[in-house]
C-alpha cells in the first residue's frame, strides 16, 4: 500500500499509519477468512471429528453390543488386535483391493479419456453416457452384476458360451475369483469419475506440443509416454491419493455381494471392522481395529506424498 506524502518529516508518521492500517486490514481480512472457513471446520468436527473421538475412547473400553454398557480396559484391545492373524490378513487383502482398484481404474479411465476426447458425435455422446455407472447406487451395482453373471439366467455366461467359454457362473462364490471380480465390479462403478478428470486434464495440454512432436516423427505411443503422461503427473498424483483413500474404505460394494466371504477371501479391513462390530457384537474391538487402520493409512499416505509428489509444489 503506497501512500504519497508531501513533506518528508510527515513521512514517518504517515508510514506508521499505513502500516497500522495495513495490519488492521490484514487482521480484518483474516477474521473474514476464518469466518468463511468456519462452517467447513464445524461440519468436519461435528460429523467426523466427534464420532472419531468417540471411536478412540471406545477402543479403550470393552463394549460388546454397540451401545451396551462397558468398562475401561486400557490398551487390552490393541494388544489383541495387533496379535490377531485375521486382522493382518484383512489388512493384506485391503492392500490387494487398493492396488487392484488403483491399477484397473487408472488404466480403464485413461483408455476411456483417450476415447472420449474426440469431436465427433460418438465422442460427445460418450462424454455423457460414460458417466452412468457412477450414478448408480452401490446397491444396484451389486444386484446388476450378481444377476448378470448368474449361471442360469445371467447374460454374461450365455455370451461366453457363444464364444466357446463354457461353464461360467457367478464368480462371487469362488475363493480365487471373488476378489478380482469385486475389483472389476467396483472399477466399473467408479472409473467414470477418473476418466472425466483425466480427460479434462488432457484438454489443457496445448495441441501445439503434439503437432511439434508429430512433425519430429514421434509415434503415438511415444507421444503418450513422453508428453501426455508426464504432463498429467499432478492430476494422477491427486487422483491416486484421494481415489485410494476412498477405495480403501469401501464397505457396501463388498458386503452386499459376499459379506466378506467365501472363507474370508474378500474380507478387507473395513469389512473386518463391520463384521466385528455388528456381527460378532464386539464394538470395542472394532474401534481398536479402526484406529490402527487409520494410523496405517496415514503412514501410507505420508509415504505416498513423499515419494510420488510431482516436482511442482503442491
Amino acid at each position, binding site marked *: 500500500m503506497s501512500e504519497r506524502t508531501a513533506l518528508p518529516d510527515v513521512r514517518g508518521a504517515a508510514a506508521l499509519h499505513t502500516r497500522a492500517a495495513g495490519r488492521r*486490514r490484514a487482521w*480484518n481480512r483474516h*477474521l*473474514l477468512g476464518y*469466518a*468463511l472457513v*468456519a*462452517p467447513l471446520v*464445524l461440519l468436519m468436527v461435528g460429523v467426523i471429528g466427534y464420532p472419531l473421538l468417540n471411536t478412540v475412547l471406545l477402543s479403550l473400553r470393552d463394549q*460388546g*453390543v*454397540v*451401545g*451396551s454398557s462397558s468398562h475401561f480396559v486400557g490398551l487390552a484391545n490393541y494388544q489383541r488386535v495387533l496379535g490377531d492373524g485375521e486382522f493382518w490378513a484383512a489388512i493384506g487383502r485391503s492392500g490387494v483391493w487398493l492396488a487392484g482398484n488403483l491399477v484397473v481404474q487408472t488404466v480403464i479411465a485413461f483408455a476411456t479419456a483417450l476415447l472420449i476426447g474426440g469431436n465427433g458425435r460418438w465422442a460427445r455422446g460418450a462424454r455423457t453416457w460414460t458417466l452412468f455407472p457412477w450414478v448408480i447406487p452401490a446397491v444396484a451395482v451389486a444386484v446388476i452384476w*450378481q444377476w448378470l*453373471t*448368474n*449361471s*442360469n*439366467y445371467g447374460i454374461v455366461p450365455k455370451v461366453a458360451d457363444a464364444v466357446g467359454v463354457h*461353464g461360467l*457362473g*457367478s*464368480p*462371487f*462364490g*469362488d*475363493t480365487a475369483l471373488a476378489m478380482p471380480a469385486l475389483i472389476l465390479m467396483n472399477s466399473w462403478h467408479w472409473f467414470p469419475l477418473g476418466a472425466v478428470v483425466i480427460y479434462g486434464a488432457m484438454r489443457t495440454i496445448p495441441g501445439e506440443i503434439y503437432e511439434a512432436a508429430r512433425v519430429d516423427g514421434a509415434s503415438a505411443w511415444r507421444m503418450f509416454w513422453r508428453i501426455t503422461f508426464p504432463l498429467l503427473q499432478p492430476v494422477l498424483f491427486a487422483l491416486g491419493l484421494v481415489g485410494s483413500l476412498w477405495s480403501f474404505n469401501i464397505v457396501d460394494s463388498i458386503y452386499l*455381494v*459376499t*459379506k*466378506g*466371504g*467365501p*472363507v474370508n*477371501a474378500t474380507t478387507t479391513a473395513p469389512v473386518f471392522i463391520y*463384521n466385528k462390530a*455388528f*456381527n*460378532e*457384537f*464386539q464394538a470395542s474391538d472394532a474401534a481398536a481395529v479402526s484406529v490402527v487402520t487409520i494410523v496405517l493409512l496415514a503412514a501410507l499416505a505420508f509415504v505416498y506424498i513423499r515419494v510420488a509428489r510431482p516436482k511442482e509444489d503442491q
Partner: protein
Amino acid sequence: MRFRTARRVAVAAVGLAVVLPVTACGGSSGPAGGGGGNDKTLTLWHMEQPPNRVAAFQKVIDAYNATNPEYKVKAQVQDWNQVYTKISSAVQSKTQPDILFTIPDFTTYVRPLGVVRPVTDLVKELDQEHHFVEAAKAAYHDDDQYWAVPLYGMVQMLWYRKDLFAKAGITEAPKTWSELLADAKKLTTGKQHGIAVPAGKNLATDQVIYSLMLTGGAGNFFTPSGEVDFDKPQAVAALSLYAELLKLSPSDAGSYSWGEPQAAFNSGAAAMAIEKGQYLSPFEKESGRPASDLGCAPIPQADSGGQPGSIYYSNAAMILSKDDARAKGAEEFLRFVLKPENYGTFLNAEPGLFLPLTADGATAPSWTNNEVIKKYRGCVDAMLEQSKTGALFGFVDGQYIDSIGKISGQNILAQVVQRVYNNGDSPAEAIKWGQQKMQEAVSR
C-alpha cells in the same frame, strides 16, 4: 468503516449458512420419528420390506386403527441389515419403537439393551384362547418369562418339480438321505441340476444346512449346561451330505442366497430345493408351469439315527414401550392381530411363507380363503404338519442360549459349508473349525 460492516455481513451470512440446514427447509417428521413422540401413537418397526408385505401389514393396522383404540399404531419399515445398529442407537437416545417385530436370535440381541418388557401374561392368555404351537413359544421363553408374542411361523420343506421327476421316471419324493442323493444324481443331466442349495455366506445357507442337521440328529449344538457341542459325527455326516448336494447344484452355488435357488427351480434348471413356503406364491408366474407341477415333501431324514424335522422360525413381536399405558395399548394391537378374523389378512402378506402358529388360525377362513393357500392346500397342510417337529438352533428342547445371536450373526454354519465347498476342507475339519468358532463367539 466499510470494512467493519462488510465483516459483520460476512459473519452473519456464514452463520446463516450453518443455521439454515439445521432449522429451515427440508421437511421432517421431527422427534416423533423414533417412537414415543406423539402421545397417542404407537410406533411399530417391522422388517418385512417387500411392497406386498408392507401393504398387507398396513391393511391390518388400518383395520385396527379403525376400531378407534386409545392408542393408534403406525408402522415404520426397517431393513434387517440396518436394524441392529438402528435399535442400539434408538435405545440409547430413548427413541425406540413401541412394538418391534423379531426373530429368536434378534431378541437375544435386543434384550441386553434393557428395554424389552416381559409379556408372559399376554402370551398365557393368548395361548389359552388360540393355542400356540409349542415351538413358536419356546424360542421366546427364558427365565420363566416370555419376551415376545409369537405372530407367524416359517418352516422348510423339500420342493420338487413333479414334471421333471416324471421325465426322469421317479414316482415318489425321496424320504431318506440316500434316496435324496440318488434322485438328485439321476436328475442331473445336461443343463439340468438335480438340486439347488445355497453356499453363500448368508442366512439362507445357515437355514438349509441346519434343516439337514436336524433330520440327521445333530440339531442341538449345546449341552444342557450351555456348552458348545457342535462337533458330533452326525453333524459331520450332515455336512458330507450337503457337500454332495452342492456338487449336484449349479456351479456358482457359492454365491447363492434365497433368490438364486428359487430362480433355478422355477426356470427348470434345478429339480429340487429345500426352502420355506415362499416357493408357493410365485411358482406359476415364474415357471410358466401349472400348479400341479409343484411338489412338496418333508425334508429327507438320515438313513439311520435320523428324525423328522425342519428349521422353524417363529416370528414374534416385542414390546419396548417406556410406560405401562402404552404397553397396554401395544398388547391390544397384538390381540387384534391374532384374532382369527384378522389373522388371515396378516398372514397372507406372503401366503404360504407366513404360517399360522395358532390352532384356530390354521382353520380361519380369513387365511384359508386365499388363492394361493387354496391352490396348494396339500403343501400348506404338509407345512403345518412339519411345524410340529420344527426347531431352531439355540432354542432346541426348551433351551435358551443368550449368545446365539453371535453365531447366527456371523453365519458360522454358512462359513463351515464354505470351508468344505470353497476351501476343500474335509467335513470333519470344517466341523471342528465350526466348534472352535462357536466357542469363541459364545465366550466373549
